[in-house]
């Protein structure tokens, strides 16, 4: 009983396997090497033939539950299906990605399986004698990293995206694809999703450069200045996004999907430019893995300068035009 179940996600835009799921598989592969167990995947959704073939390249077994009612994510139906996969696969380890879907499903699964769950893990270490996972997680707004264990099996965790190596090598042969026929009807869920509203599709986690604004940007107008810097950076990077700390989101200057931090998106781009951000711990831990951090702030004592590589003290509105011009000269 040492098998691993990696729970896959289908990207709603591309219908392909979500990139984060390759990280879950990467972690799963490492675990299976450690335990000697098989690596299984759970694939739940609708019209999944192609995706199942893709996943089978990396796993020993793929459990597929394919149903029209699973097309749009409904956590009650999804957890029902996942519970059935768990019954069949009987894994000792269950790994999900800590995405909005994973965060909605994993606690429900925890209650149904009656095992504790650790969410948003940034590290896992297998104890080879006990088989227990030492789980590493940021707590207290990121000021502390805690390592702890639970003795209950299956060991249930969600992984923070972008922290784990994606699975690389495909197998020589293909894993087995197992279709579970499940009776799913609407009576299984009391929730009815009546509308899906698409906002601007921000994928902060995929950006390789982020220009982020905080309270010090001053308002929605200020974010237009940030757009100008973004436009120049787009000539240097393949994907640039506008991000924000919590105050601009709470004040409604930008959409919540742009929030970087422990309660928002965790990012690790090549370049992170923090404008008018003071550097509250809960923001910092969402971006401190960025390769180069630039901070621009009026207040020379702002904590953001302690965690930045390059800092400028001053009014961003005055500095930006010259900064942009300077960057253009290098193009």
């Amino acid at each position, binding site marked *: 009983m040492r098998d691993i179940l990696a729970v896959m996600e289908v990207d709603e835009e591309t219908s392909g396997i979500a990139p984060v799921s390759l990280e879950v598989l990467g972690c799963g592969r490492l675990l299976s090497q450690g335990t000697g167990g098989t690596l299984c995947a759970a694939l739940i959704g609708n019209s999944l033939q192609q995706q199942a073939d893709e996943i089978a390249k990396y796993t020993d077994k793929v459990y597929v539950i394919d149903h029209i009612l699973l097309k749009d994510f409904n956590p009650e139906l999804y957890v029902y299906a996942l519970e059935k996969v768990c019954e069949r696969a009987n894994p000792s380890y269950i790994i999900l990605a800590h995405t909005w879907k994973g965060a909605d499903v994993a606690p429900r699964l925890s209650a149904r399986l009656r095992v504790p769950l650790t969410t948003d893990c940034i590290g896992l270490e297998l104890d080879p004698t006990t088989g227990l996972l030492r789980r590493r997680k940021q707590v207290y*707004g990121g000021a502390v990293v805690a390592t702890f264990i639970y003795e209950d099996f299956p060991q249930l965790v969600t992984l923070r995206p972008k922290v784990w190596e994606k699975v690389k090598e495909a197998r020589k042969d293909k894993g087995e694809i197992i279709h579970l026929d499940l009776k799913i009807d609407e009576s299984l869920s009391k929730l009815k999703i009546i509308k899906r509203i698409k906002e601007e599709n921000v994928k902060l986690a995929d950006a390789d450069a982020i220009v982020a604004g905080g309270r010090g940007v001053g308002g929605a107008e200020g974010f237009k200045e940030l757009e100008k810097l973004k436009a120049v950076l787009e000539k240097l990077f393949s994907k640039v996004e506008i991000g924000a700390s919590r105050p601009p989101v709470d004040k409604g200057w930008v959409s919540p999907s742009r929030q970087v931090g422990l309660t928002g998106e965790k990012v690790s781009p090549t370049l992170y430019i923090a404008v008018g951000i003071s550097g509250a711990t809960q923001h910092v831990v969402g971006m401190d893995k960025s390769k180069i951090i630039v901070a621009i702030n009026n207040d020379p004592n702002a904590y953001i300068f*302690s965690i930045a590589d390059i800092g400028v003290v001053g009014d961003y509105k005055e500095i930006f035009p010259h900064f942009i011009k*300077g960057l253009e000269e290098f193009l």
Partner: protein
Amino acid sequence: MKSLNIIVCVKQVPSPEAPPSVVEIDSKELQVRVRGLPPEINPLDGTALEAALQLKEAHGGKITVLSVGDRLSEGVLRKVLAAGADELITVQGEELNDLDSYATALVLQRAVEKIGKYDLILTGKQSADWNSEQTGLILAELLKVPAVNSVKKIEILDEEALLTTVRSGGYDVVKAPLPLLVTVTSELGELRYVPLTALKKAREKPIKIWKIEDLQLDLSKLGKRKVVDLLKPKLERVCTLIEGRTPEEKGKNLAIKLHEALRTLSSK
């Protein structure tokens, strides 16, 4: 619409705005302590209470606040009564120190069942200390009521609720029957300002204190979180401050420095 019976689950947490310098690790007890700052109501649970207050204003009804823990501060929790909650019930005891999400949800389940009737349970999506994002959803499963996660807007129609949930890349509008559990996000708004006079007045309001024995619950058989290590990560980097007398010089020097840094990075 009938009036609403709302239960709000609230956690007392160490001050979430505490800078890293006052967060200390007791390596003997393996506990985190925050020096010099009083604990607070978890901000998102405050948001849940604010949502409850607004629903009560619109529909009438009763708000019961429920909190579980060890060393709960009356002063901190009374704020919920001052803000307008009708009743405050705490479940207290040493064995409730540092409970994880699952154990907390079990205690809450028993307490909710003891309270009896309710239409809506509201709580924050996550707490500011362990940040686990699970207690609400587990509680709903244990109570066998539907749960909607990550909600930024709540509307109550007769026996149903219309919830707007925050998801990656947009919003969902979800319809769910009552009774129902909802976890809320910060977009719903902070807990209203509570004036000092209201705080003083709230001192006269009673707080119900329940013990774990009152709930016929044995936590000893439950799997426990065993902390093996606590570490304060080093977030700090060596920051090169850009020199310059004018914004023009600073902007130009920043571009040069950044270009340099990017080149060093790509040559690695």
